[in-house]
């Protein structure tokens, strides 16, 4: 009921992962009062922004500032939405099409807060955390200047 302290786990990973193991471990550690869990997973597309075949996606970040900013906005969003706990996984390094880029999970007592907080946390990761993507196609790397749209 929001009475337990906010609880979060943040992992910046430089090796491929499906996220399944981390999600399972985190879910097993949740209190049964966290009856609702919303999860989002984003994976590398097969095509670059310009429609070319994507060879790889490079993900750069600013270590230190990155983790601290994620922790700050995650705590704020959990409190704002009345959610209890969050798991954030984010890949860095060289990623191949289909690999997991990001996994966000939020648990709460009710489905509304879990869903809304999970969506808000994903937007914060896209816009407020120092990560940068570079697309590699045919040996040429292009830094993205903006994120993919939410989708109408």
């Amino acid at each position: 009921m929001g009475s337990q302290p906010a609880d979060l786990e943040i992992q910046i990973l430089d090796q491929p992962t499906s996220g399944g193991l981390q999600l399972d471990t985190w879910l097993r550690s949740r209190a049964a009062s966290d009856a609702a869990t919303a999860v989002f997973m984003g994976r590398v597309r097969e095509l670059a922004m310009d429609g070319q075949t994507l060879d790889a996606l490079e993900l750069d970040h600013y270590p230190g500032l990155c983790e601290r900013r994620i922790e700050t906005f995650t705590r704020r969003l959990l409190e704002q939405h009345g959610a209890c706990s969050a798991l954030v996984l984010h890949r860095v390094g060289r990623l191949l099409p289909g690999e997991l880029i990001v996994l966000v999970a939020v648990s709460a007592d009710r489905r509304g807060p879990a869903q809304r907080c999970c969506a808000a946390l994903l937007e914060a990761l896209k816009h407020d955390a120092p990560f940068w993507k570079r697309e590699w196609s045919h040996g040429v790397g292009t830094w993205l200047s903006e994120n993919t749209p939410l989708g109408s």
Partner: protein
Amino acid sequence: MNAWQPDSAQTVKVLLFASLREQAGWSDRRIPLNAVAVSSAREIWDRLELGDLPQVVLVAINQEIVSADHPVHAGDELAFLPPFTGG
């Protein structure tokens, strides 16, 4: 003035990321501070000869995001951050 300048005592460590790193051709560098006046982050940027500081570029000093006019002191870590594209 003292001719002896230890690395961090009279310099600021500048970090560039992503497209800025590409543009400059380097990722981190020590920049000596002006000994008589306090410099702002924007003044340090201007000494990098990378053109005007783009509006969309964020400034972090000691891993805290601040305004481009924030003063920079010897030993600080100053980073210039293009728009974030994670998630």
